[in-house]
C-alpha cells in the first residue's frame, strides 16, 4: 500500500486518514493554498500555512482551521507532514509526507521564479512527486517578471499619454497582487475591481505590503479614470462594468497570452505573458530537483506531459483530478456569475 493514494475525494493518506486538497468534503483536509479548486468548502478540519489562512478563512467563512509554519513537522499516526514554499501565491505550499523512509511531495500549484511577494519556491527531495502540468508543453516559456512588468508599465505610460484608461486583468488572488507590486506608481493612480480589493484588504491585514489602491465604486467621477490604471478580474471584461472607463486599453496578464489565438480571443488590446505556474523548462527543472523517480501528473496537459516524462525514463502516471489551475481562467464564467460579481463590486 503506497503512502498516498488517489480516490474520488482527492489525494489520500490512509495511515493518517487525511486528504490533501480534497474536492469532496472529508473529515481532515491539508490545504496547499487558497485558490478555489484547492481549498473547497465543506471539510470538517482544515490545516494550512499561517500565511495562507486569512484568505481561506475569508473565502470559506467559519471553518475549523489550524495553521502551521513553513518547515514545521506535524506527526499524525507516525506519518510526518510538513509544508514547504511553492512560490505560487502568498502562503502556498508543497506538502511533504514521510513514513518509514517513504517520501511524497504534493506540490499543488507552483512556480520557480521568485516573484518577490510569495515565499520563494524551495525544492524538496522525495521519491514520489505530484505535479501540475498547466503549461506542460514546450511552447510555454516565460520571460523574467522584471521584463514583463517593464512592458506593462510602458503600455500604461503610453495609454496614459493618450489620455486613456488602462485596464489590466489578473485573477483576484495572486496574479492581481503580483501586478500591483510591479506597477510603477509614478505613472498614475491604481484603481481596483471590488473582488481584488477585498483580497487586498485581507492580505494587507496580515502584513503584506501593497501599493496604495482605490476601490472602483459608483461614487467615483468617471473623469478621474483616464491616465490611471484599473486592475480587474478577467471576468469583468466584456461586461457593462467596464463601460464607465470610457475609451480604455485592455491588457491581460496570463500564461495563456503566449498563444496568438488566446490573445485575439480574449479581446484584449495587449496580452502580457505572466503566469503563477511553471513554464515547460521549470517544470522539468523542478522534477529534476526533487530527485523523484515516480511522478504523478495532475491538471493541465497531463497525457502529453506524462508521456514525455516516461520517455525521459521516469515512472510517470497521468491522474484525473478536479484541479483546474489557470484553465479556470480561460473558460469564461457564466454571464450571471460575473454580473453578480460586478454588481457586488459596485455596491461596496
Amino acid at each position, binding site marked *: 500500500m503506497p503512502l498516498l493514494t488517489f480516490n474520488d475525494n482527492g489525494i489520500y493518506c490512509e495511515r493518517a486518514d487525511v486528504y490533501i486538497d480534497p474536492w469532496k468534503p472529508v473529515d481532515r483536509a491539508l490545504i496547499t493554498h487558497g485558490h478555489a479548486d484547492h481549498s473547497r468548502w465543506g471539510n470538517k478540519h482544515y490545516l494550512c500555512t499561517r500565511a495562507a489562512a486569512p484568505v481561506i478563512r475569508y473565502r470559506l467563512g467559519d471553518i475549523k482551521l489550524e495553521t502551521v509554519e513553513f518547515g514545521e513537522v506535524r506527526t499524525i499516526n507516525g506519518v510526518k507532514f510538513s509544508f514547504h514554499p511553492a512560490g505560487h501565491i502568498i502562503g502556498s505550499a508543497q506538502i511533504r509526507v514521510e513514513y518509514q523512509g517513504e517520501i511524497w511531495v504534493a506540490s499543488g500549484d507552483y512556480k520557480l521564479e521568485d516573484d518577490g511577494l510569495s515565499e520563494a519556491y524551495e525544492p524538496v527531495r522525495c521519491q514520489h512527486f505530484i505535479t501540475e502540468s498547466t503549461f506542460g*508543453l*514546450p*511552447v*510555454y*516559456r516565460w520571460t523574467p517578471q522584471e521584463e514583463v512588468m517593464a512592458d506593462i508599465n510602458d503600455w500604461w505610460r503610453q495609454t496614459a499619454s493618450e489620455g486613456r484608461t488602462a485596464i489590466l486583468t489578473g485573477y483576484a488572488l495572486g496574479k492581481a497582487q503580483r501586478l500591483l507590486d510591479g506597477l510603477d506608481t509614478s505613472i498614475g493612480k491604481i484603481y481596483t475591481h471590488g473582488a481584488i480589493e477585498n483580497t487586498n484588504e485581507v492580505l494587507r491585514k496580515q502584513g503584506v505590503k501593497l501599493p496604495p489602491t482605490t476601490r472602483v465604486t459608483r461614487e467615483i467621477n468617471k473623469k478621474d479614470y483616464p491616465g490611471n490604471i484599473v486592475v480587474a478580474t478577467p471576468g469583468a471584461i466584456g461586461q457593462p462594468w467596464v463601460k464607465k472607463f470610457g475609451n480604455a486599453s485592455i491588457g491581460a496578464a496570463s500564461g*495563456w497570452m*503566449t*498563444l*496568438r*489565438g*488566446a*490573445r*485575439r*480571443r480574449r*479581446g484584449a*488590446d*495587449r496580452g502580457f505573458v505572466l503566469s503563477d505556474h511553471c513554464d515547460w523548462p521549470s517544470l522539468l527543472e523542478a522534477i529534476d530537483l526533487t530527485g523523484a523517480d515516480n511522478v504523478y501528473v495532475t491538471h493541465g*496537459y497531463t*497525457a*502529453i506531459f506524462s508521456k*514525455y516524462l516516461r*520517455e525521459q525514463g521516469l515512472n510517470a502516471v497521468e491522474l484525473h483530478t478536479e484541479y483546474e489551475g489557470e484553465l479556470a481562467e*480561460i*473558460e*469564461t464564467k*457564466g*454571464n450571471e456569475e460575473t454580473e453578480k460579481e460586478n454588481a457586488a463590486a459596485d455596491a461596496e
Partner: protein
Amino acid sequence: MKNFAEMFRRLDRTTKINAKVDALADYFLQVDDEDKLWTVALLSHRRPRRTVNSKLLRAWASEMSGIDTWILEESYHVVGDLAETIALVLPPPEHDYDHTLTHWIDYIQEFAKYDEEGKKEAVQEAWNGLDTTERYLFNKLITGSFRVGVSQKLMTRALSRATGIEETNLAHRLMGNWTPNDTTFEDLIHSESATDDISRPYPFYLAYQLEQPAADLGDPADWQAEHKWDGIRGQVIVRDDEVFVWSRGEELVNDKYPEYHILASAIPNGTVIDGEILPFKDGQPLGFNVLQTRIGRKTVSKKLLKDAPVILMCYDLLEYEGRDVRKLPLSGRRELLERIMEEHDTGGVLQLSPVFAFDNWDDLAAERETAREKFSEGIMLKRIDSAYKQGRKKGDWWKWKVDPLTIDAVMMYAQRGHGRRANLYTDFTFGVWDGDQLVPFTKAYSGLTDKEFNKITAWVRRNTVDRFGPVRSVKPKQVFEIGFEGIRKSTRHKSGVALRFPRMLRWRQDKPVDEANTKADLDALLETYGG
C-alpha cells in the same frame, strides 16, 4: 523585417479598423518601394512560391529544439498554427539579424536552388537570428498566406493614405495578374492608364444578405429582381482580341473553361461582363455538384465538356466600347448588356440572367420559395438606379437567400480549432439516430458565438469518453440545429450523404437528445432535394 514585425504586432493587438489603418499607413511610410510591393502582395494573397514542405520544417524545428516530433505535433494541435508552434519551441536566438522584408523573401525564394541539406542550413540559420514574432512571420512566408485580419479594402485605404492616390483608383490598380517578381511598385501604382495590363479586372461589387423584411425596401418599382445563381462569380474581359476570365478570388481561370474562348471573336473588344460561371445544358442550369467536377481541373477532357458544359449567366456590364460604364445606373448598363447579347451570336455561351417582373413583395417571396428547385440560391435584389460599386456594400444590392435546410443533430466528436480558436473545441462531428445508434453525417465549425464556444469547450473537457489523437468522442448529450444549403448522395461518406455549407444555426439546449432527427429524416431530405 523589424518594421514588418512591428506593424504585424500593432495589427494583431487591435480589432479597431482605424488603429489597423494607422499601423499599416505608418509602415508604408517607413519602408522602401520593394517592401511596400511585397507587403501589398502578401496582404492580397500573393505569396512567394513554396520551396519547403511543412514536414521538413517540423523535422528541422524538432532537431534544433531537441524536442521529439510527436510532442511538437501535440503542441501544434494546441497552438493551432504550425508557424507559431515552431517559433515558440525553438531555443532563443543567438544573433539579431536586421534585414528588409524583401531580403528575407529573396532568401526564401533562393531555397529552390538548394538541396535539402542546404535548405535546412538556411532555415535554421534564419531561425537563429530572429525573435519570436519575426520567426513566426518568416515561417508564414515559407508555409502559407497570412491571416492578420486585414482585408484588401483596409490595406488599400492605408496605402491610399500613405501615397495620396485615391482609394478606388488604387483598388483597381491592385487587381489582376501581377506578382512582385514581374513588376515594380512604381509601375503598379503610378503607371498612367489602368488598362496597361489588358487582363486587369474591375473589383467585384458584392451584396450583403438581406436581414430586414423585403417590404422595408420600399416601392418594388425601384428594384430589379433576378435569380441568385448557384455557380461561381466570374468576370469576362474581351480586349485586344483576347479573352480573360476572372473568378471572384482574383484567379485567372481561362484554361479551366475553354467554352469562353470563342468570345474573343464573338463580342467586341472593350467589353467586360459580370456574371455567374454556371453548368448549363438543354436550357437548364445543372446543380453545383456538376460544377464541382470542373473546379480544380486545369485540363478538361472532351467527356467532361460534354457532361458539364458551362456558360456565363450575365447580369451586369462594366465596360462598353472600351469605356468604364460602372457609374451608369443599373437600368442603363442592363440596356447595353442586352444590346450586346442581341447583336452578337455567342452560340449560347453568354446567357442573359432573366429579370422577374413583380409589383408586390409577397409575389416575390413566393418566387423565392421555389428557388431551390431551379438550382438557384434565392433572389438578388438590385436598385434600378444603382452604380456598380466595389467591395461589399450595403444599401443598393441585397442577396435574399432561401432559408437553409435544417436538421437537429447530436454532437459525437470534438476537435480543437485553429487560429483564434486554437485550444478551443470548435470543430464538431454530428450524427442522427438510426434506431438507438448515432450515425455521423456531417462536420460543422461555425455558427456559434465565442461565449458558446467557451461553454461547449468546458463541457467537452468534462464529458470526453475517448481520445483518438486530437479528436475526442463525447457523451451524446448535446443537440444542435444544423443548417445547410444542399444535400446530395455521396459514396465517400459513411452516412451516404454530403451536405453543402453545413453550419450550426443554434445550440438546442432545450432539446432532449432522443428528440434529435433520424437517419430516415435525412433520407427524406435527400429524396426531395438531392436530385
